[in-house]
């Protein structure tokens, strides 16, 4: 007995190869993959017109499972590869799948410059606060004081606020949600895909097997409940005191503005030569 969401998923997954997937039981990556597929299905995009690009890490294994043009690249470098695809073929809908370490540590430079250029790429950043694939080392988003295999006495590093970073660098659509809020995530991803310019959706996620275990956060269901209880919609923030906001994940659209998109700007630059050529004919 097939229900509707399953049929949608099956239309967009590669069924010829490579299952089961690599993700641990309780990992949020599968939920986010479902969110992305349902968003794309609702938008009714042609699969040939989508290129999904990723770097290295747990979340970056996502492209191999989906039936789009897919590109699994180097650690931290998904954005420059995606920039090459998008700039060459602006008609492609380019989605970057990345994680906290991939995008903000090794790939931090590319991340801020893609925001600055405002190139029409949708970046979905699955933030699990840890390097999962290598077994649990601290990332730029591991909360200060938490444990990882390379900070056994507690993390002394301050953390990045990824959305602040993107907004500071000039991204024109920035949103955050959690893996628990699947319907909200689906809606935000849909809006990000429809946005013209660089868009970021940060999905705070659960890594119960490594981060959760090292920090006694409980199993997958407990971590889901924590995401529900520790997050607030952006609309509620105005009414809350700084003390109440301490440690809270702010969800929703944090920025949505229109600015000139990079490929359009280049196309515009080239039109002067086209018009000269036509005039000379």
């Amino acid at each position: 007995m097939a229900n509707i969401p399953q049929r949608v998923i099956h239309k967009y997954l590669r069924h010829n190869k490579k299952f089961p997937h690599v993700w641990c039981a309780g990992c949020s990556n599968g939920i986010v993959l479902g969110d992305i597929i349902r968003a794309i299905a609702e938008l009714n995009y042609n699969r040939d017109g989508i290129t999904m690009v990723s770097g290295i890490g747990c979340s970056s294994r996502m492209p191999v499972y989906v039936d789009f043009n897919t590109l699994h690249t180097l650690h931290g470098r998904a954005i420059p590869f995606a920039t090459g695809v998008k700039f060459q073929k602006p008609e492609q809908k380019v989605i970057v799948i990345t994680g906290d370490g991939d995008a903000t540590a090794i790939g931090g430079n590319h991340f801020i410059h893609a925001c600055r250029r405002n190139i029409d790429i949708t970046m979905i950043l699955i933030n699990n606060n840890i390097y999962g694939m290598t077994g649990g080392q601290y990332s730029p988003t591991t909360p200060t004081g938490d444990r990882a295999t390379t900070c056994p006495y507690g993390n002394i590093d301050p953390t990045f606020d990824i959305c602040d970073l993107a907004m500071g660098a000039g991204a024109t659509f920035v949103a955050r949600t959690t893996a628990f809020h699947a319907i909200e995530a689906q809606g935000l991803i849909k809006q990000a895909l429809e946005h013209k310019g660089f868009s970021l959706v940060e999905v705070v996620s659960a890594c119960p097997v490594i981060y959760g275990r090292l920090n006694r956060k409980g199993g997958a269901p407990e971590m889901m409940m924590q995401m529900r209880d520790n997050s607030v919609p952006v609309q509620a923030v105005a009414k809350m005191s700084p003390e109440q906001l301490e440690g809270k994940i702010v969800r929703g659209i944090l920025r949505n503005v229109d600015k000139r998109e990079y490929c359009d700007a280049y196309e515009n630059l080239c039109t002067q030569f086209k018009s000269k050529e036509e005039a000379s004919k």
Partner: protein
Amino acid sequence: MSKKNEKLNEKVVEIQPADTQSADTRKVVLMQGNEAVAMGALAAGLNFYAGYPITPSTEIAEILSSELPKRGGKFIQMEDEIASICAIIGASLAGAKAMTATSGPGFSLMQEGIGYAKITETPCVVVDVQRGGPSTGLPTKPSQSDIMQSKWGSHGDAPAIVLYPHTVKECYELAIRAINLAEKYRTCVTLLLDEVLGHMREAVKLPDISNVRIINRLKPTVPPEWYKHYDENQKYLSPVASYGEGYRFHVTGLAHDALGFPTNKASEVATMMKRLKCKITHNIRDLVQIESYMMEDATIAIFAAGICARSAKAAIKSAREYGIKVGLLRPITIWPFPDDAVRKMLRDVDTVIVPELNEGQMIHELQRLTKDKGDGKLIPIQRTDGEMITPSHIFQVIKEVH
């Protein structure tokens, strides 16, 4: 078969002396090496360039930033060299003929991406206008210290195709050839230049473009459901689709099977590694070009590439006036190395002088091909102080060994 007429696996290219072209009506232009690279690449159909400024290669980016928008091509200045190599690979997968240019420090940063282009069999060209190293070294001085980096720079085993011009005209021709070979062999081709060649201006007559063969990558003719991105039935050179053409293939830097999906299976990994190797080693005659200059009667040979070959030719002319039988063997393709031609040279002559602007990267290859590592037979001339090896320096060595 006589020794002198032995058939080589590599191709000997006839280099026309400038004065034989006096009858033709093509315009003589004054052109810089870097400019010739940019114009050659455009002639070969280059339509995507991503780069980051670095001396002494920057003119290539400057010229292409002016030319590509006029021709419907794409130019983008990236945030660093790592981003540049990644962007050209992405663009190539979307169908572009893509190139970047850099120098030693940037070439080091690009190595991971170059390995990615090789394992994923994505056509692209990297121009490395070499400068003195290590590290920041000598940005405006010549050096040939990236000869080994261009072969072994990226981790893992994947053969390299590296071309090395010695004149501005050849910069133009080899830029075309680099893009052609990248398209044909689905790999990253490196064009090595010397700093002095990149910045040197020479009067050149460029080849008539309508007579130059331009190679475009083979496109699949099968329906998408039959398509294999690395088809094992195609003698290592299989057709390649681009993103957005309905084929929806997967590309990964992980070891992969014929469809491009990751694999750990020993037999599938072995097939992939064999493919990377054999597409080069089975096509040596197509890939490897050498120039043989006054070698017919030579008892002393000079083996030199790039700008050192220019000094060598001048030294040979002087030595010939004294009746010394000396010639030059010049690799135009340095990787794969012209093993056959070098073996023949080592048999035919008494002494081989090897001038190079590094501490012996090229001479290692000659030692590999000689008995007793060429003891007594190979005479090195090495310089790494940022200055050229002059014709008079080489001439002195010729006189000493004569």
